[in-house]
C-alpha cells in the first residue's frame, strides 16, 4: 500500500515537474522532448489508477504518434521557429508573461478550491459502487470487459469517432498539400 503511494508521488512529481519545465523552457526542442517524459509519467499514473489498457494506448498513440508528428512539424517549419525564441531571451522575468501567470494561478486556486469542496471520495455514487463491489481492484483484469463494452454499449460513439478520424486525416492531407495544384 505504501509502495503504491510512494510510486504515485514519484510519478506525479515527474509529470508536474516536466510539464512545468516544458512550459518554462525557452528552447522548443527541449520543450518537445521533455513532453515525452510528461506523457510517460502520465502513463504510469494511469497504471496506478488501474487502467493499464489506457496506459498502453497512451504510450502507443501519444508517444509513438503525436510526438513524432510534432517533431516532424518542427523540422519542416525550419529555422524561423528558432529565431522567435532567440530575441525574447534576456530578461529573467518577462513582463508579458505576468498576466498569463496570474491567470493560471488564479484558475488553479479556483479548481483546487472546488476539488476540496466537492470531496470526490465521498460522492454517493462512488460509495454505492464500492458497496456493490463495482470497483476495479488490482487483481481484476479489465481488458476483455473493455473490448466487449466497446463493441456493445459504446458502439455508436466508436463508429462516430472512426468516421471523425477518417475525416480529420483526409482534411489534414488536404490542408498540407502543395499550393496551386488544385
Amino acid at each position, binding site marked *: 500500500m505504501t509502495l503504491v503511494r510512494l510510486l504515485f508521488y514519484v510519478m506525479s512529481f515527474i509529470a508536474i515537474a516536466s510539464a512545468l519545465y516544458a512550459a518554462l523552457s525557452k528552447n522548443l526542442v527541449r520543450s518537445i522532448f521533455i513532453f515525452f517524459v510528461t506523457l510517460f509519467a502520465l502513463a504510469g499514473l*494511469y497504471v496506478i489508477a488501474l487502467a493499464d489498457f489506457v496506459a498502453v494506448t*497512451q504510450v502507443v498513440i501519444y508517444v509513438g504518434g503525436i510526438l513524432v508528428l510534432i517533431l516532424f512539424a518542427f523540422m519542416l517549419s525550419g529555422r524561423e521557429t528558432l529565431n522567435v525564441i532567440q530575441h525574447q531571451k534576456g530578461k529573467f522575468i518577462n513582463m508579458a508573461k505576468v498576466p498569463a501567470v496570474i491567470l493560471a494561478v488564479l484558475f488553479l486556486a479556483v479548481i483546487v478550491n472546488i476539488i476540496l469542496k466537492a470531496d470526490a471520495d465521498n460522492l454517493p455514487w462512488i460509495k454505492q459502487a464500492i458497496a456493490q463491489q463495482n470497483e476495479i481492484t488490482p487483481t481484476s483484469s479489465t481488458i476483455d470487459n473493455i473490448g466487449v463494452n466497446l463493441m456493445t454499449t459504446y458502439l455508436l460513439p466508436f463508429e462516430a469517432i472512426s468516421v471523425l478520424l477518417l475525416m480529420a*486525416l483526409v482534411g489534414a492531407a488536404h490542408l498540407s498539400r502543395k499550393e496551386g495544384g488544385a
Partner: protein
Amino acid sequence: MITLTDFLLVGALLFCTGMYMIVSKRNSIQVLIGIELMLNAAILNLVAFGKYDKLNNGGQVFALFAIVLAAATTAVALAIILNVYRRYKTIDPDEIKNLRD
C-alpha cells in the same frame, strides 16, 4: 490507498500548466503542447473516476476516445501550422494578423 482527490489535484496542476503555455507562448507548436497537456489532465480525471465503474468501463472507454480525438486534433493542427508557416514564414500566433485577401 490513493484517493480520488489526489488524482484530481494532479490533474488540476497539469491543466493550469497547459493553460499557462497556451496563453503565454509565442510559438504555435508550444501552444499545441499546452493543448495536449490540458487534454491529458482531462484524461487523467476520466481514468481516475473510471476506477469506480467496473461493469460498464465508461471512464476508460471515453479516455480511449479522448486519446484518439487528440491524435486527430494534432494532425489537423500541425497541417494548419505548416500552411501558416508557408504563407507568413513565422508561426508566432501574435504575428499572424492578416486574412487571405
